[in-house]
């Protein structure tokens, strides 16, 4: 469902993503791990069509993001890293706006908004102004907009960032459940999330994939500790602070 081949992104002389290739199939949750500045968000922004690629290709459900971005974008639900929202809108107003932007109207729009509010536990704040929400609710509101059109592909950039432990647990469960029917690519800093929610994970460092496998494979590569593997493959070329 997500096919990324030879993806490269350069900003001036800096190479942010270097010839990256991976795929995510239906029913798969791919954890995208890496230290800060590894190129995770840049990759996700190219996969979702926000950033143009320097080289390579991204296909979403067989549709090229480079040749046919409008059609490819219809297939994706995206939660950006900082969970951006329009602070002057209410939660329900924002979700209705996003549903309209996704081409939904009438009863389909109403039921999509209701369902996403229910899925992300937003009932108690549905009519509240976004500007007054806590970080956890803001994150869930942005997650809700990514689910509105029931996309086949979900791209979630640090979906549990800023959530309390209970909310983290709920979102992980939600990702795992959604992953049965969809292809999910999600980035995280939290290594426990790989075993809790992913069927497969890749570790990226300096724009290159340095490890790829199931959580069990990666744990055994790290001799019983995913943390040790992460430390080993991501710090080898990074100068000491």
């Amino acid at each position, binding site marked *: 469902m997500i096919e990324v081949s030879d993806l490269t992104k350069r900003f001036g002389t800096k190479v942010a993503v270097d010839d990256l290739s991976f795929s995510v199939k239906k029913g798969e949750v791919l954890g995208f791990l890496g230290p800060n500045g590894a190129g995770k968000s840049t990759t996700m*922004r190219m996969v*979702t*069509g*926000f*950033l*143009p690629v320097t080289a390579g290709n991204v296909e979403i459900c067989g549709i090229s993001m480079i040749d046919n*971005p*409008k*059609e490819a*974008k*219809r297939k*994706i639900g*995206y939660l*950006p890293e*900082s969970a*951006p*929202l*329009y*602070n*002057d*809108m209410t939660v329900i*107003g924002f979700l209705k*706006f*996003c549903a*309209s*932007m*996704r*081409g939904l109207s009438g009863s389909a729009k109403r039921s999509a908004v209701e369902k996403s509010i229910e899925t992300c536990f937003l009932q108690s704040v549905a009519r509240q102004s976004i500007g007054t929400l806590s970080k956890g609710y803001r994150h869930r509101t942005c997650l809700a*907009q990514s689910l509105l059109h029931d996309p086949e592909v979900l791209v979630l950039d640090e979906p549990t960032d800023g959530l309390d432990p209970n909310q983290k647990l709920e979102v992980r469960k939600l990702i795992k459940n959604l992953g049965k029917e969809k292809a999910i690519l999600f980035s995280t800093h939290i290594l426990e999330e790989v075993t809790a929610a992913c069927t497969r994970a890749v570790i990226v460092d300096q724009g290159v994939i340095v490890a790829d496998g199931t959580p069990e494979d990666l744990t055994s590569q790290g001799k019983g500790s995913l943390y040790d593997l992460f430390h080993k493959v991501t710090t080898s070329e990074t100068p000491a602070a």
Partner: protein
Amino acid sequence: MNTLTIFKRELTSYFTQPTAYAIVIIFGLLSTLLAFTIGNFWAIADASLHGSFFRYHPLLLMILVPAVSMRQWADEHYTGTIELLGTFPVRLGSAIIGKFLASAVIWALALALTFPMIWTVNHLGDPDNWTIFSGYLGSFLVCLTFLAVTTLVSSFTRDQVVALIASVAICCILTILGWDPVINEIRRSGSDFAVEAMTKIGIYSHFFDATLGRISFSSLIYLFGLITVCLVGTNLALRSQRA
């Protein structure tokens, strides 16, 4: 369809914040106040509203239009919502047009709310209402031009204050270039070419013709050309920032 969705969101957003209300009221009050004070409305018996009322509109609009629209794209950059817009299956042009039209409606409303001036001159005498309508059209075109300039400037920055200062500066230059006192000063220095160029580039002369009921085709071409260049420039600027 998406243009309409963005238009509605932007328009609602203007009415959920006090800025638009404040600026519409300030414009109504100041434009009327200027007409009755330095505009000498009573002394010159200005039934067409040309010399007392419309004359000062560009001077007010060059500050107030950027104040309403400075957040247009700067805020999208600042909050990161541009990333959401950029990943929706919509053309960037639809978002630019939707936002632009919503701001245009605010200014159409601000101008419409100065209707007591029309009522006053019709009550006092028998004015040429076509000339008054033409004056309003000229004012609205100036609003659209300044709005397009602000749209372009706000696409370059995430800071609303920077967007405001830079937009006011550009609108100020566009206004002053064709303003009578400046043109007369340049004429005294003897440079006919400079006078000609400034009259063509500055918006005041185009606007002034409209307030006299003489909107020329070349003025329309110039103002709509400027608006188009700014909106296309916004599209290119937003695209290039992602590359």
